[in-house]
């Protein structure tokens, strides 16, 4: 496990931290939703972070649940089998999603054809969906 997130994280710090927690366990991730566009200079006013998990969604949730047990995250809702919302430090909302229920190849298609690399600070390089990817999986 990685160290706990900042006590009062900004949305960006919350995004960095949860991506790092997932990458620490080698889960492939894509940043999506309005926050992905904001990071590319669109300024959509996103108030949460959306993260697609490329494989083993249940495994990713079990990793995040361990952080929840430690008090770093609070699960606050879910669409069974597709989306789980967590609050980092009980405040900043992060939605973790699987795309396998939509189409088994969607993650790879988005990664290959509709994403761009972003420097996410302590989380390193992360791919984020472009506007074209956003239309394929709006959230």
């Amino acid at each position, binding site marked *: 496990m990685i160290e706990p997130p900042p006590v009062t994280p900004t949305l960006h710090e919350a995004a960095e931290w949860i991506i790092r927690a997932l990458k620490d366990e080698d889960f492939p991730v894509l940043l999506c939703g309005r926050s992905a566009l904001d990071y590319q200079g*669109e300024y959509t006013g996103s108030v949460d972070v959306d993260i697609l998990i490329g494989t083993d969604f249940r495994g990713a949730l079990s990793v995040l649940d361990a952080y929840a047990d430690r008090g770093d995250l609070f699960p606050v809702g879910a669409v069974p089998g597709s989306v789980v919302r967590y609050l980092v430090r009980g405040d900043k909302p992060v939605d973790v999603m699987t795309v396998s229920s939509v189409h088994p190849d*969607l993650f790879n298609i988005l990664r290959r054809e509709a994403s761009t690399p972003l420097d996410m600070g302590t989380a390193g390089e992360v791919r984020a969906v472009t506007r*074209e990817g956003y*239309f*394929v999986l*709006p959230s």
Partner: protein
Amino acid sequence: MLKVREAWALVGARTDRGKVERILSKLGIENGLDRALERGQ
């Protein structure tokens, strides 16, 4: 479809519409963006 129309209002002018349709086609959805936008008119 409503979310697609919202997204089009947000960033549509800067989006490569043909690329969206090509990706949707690979997912087995033909003319998905066109159909979503037409329903909103």
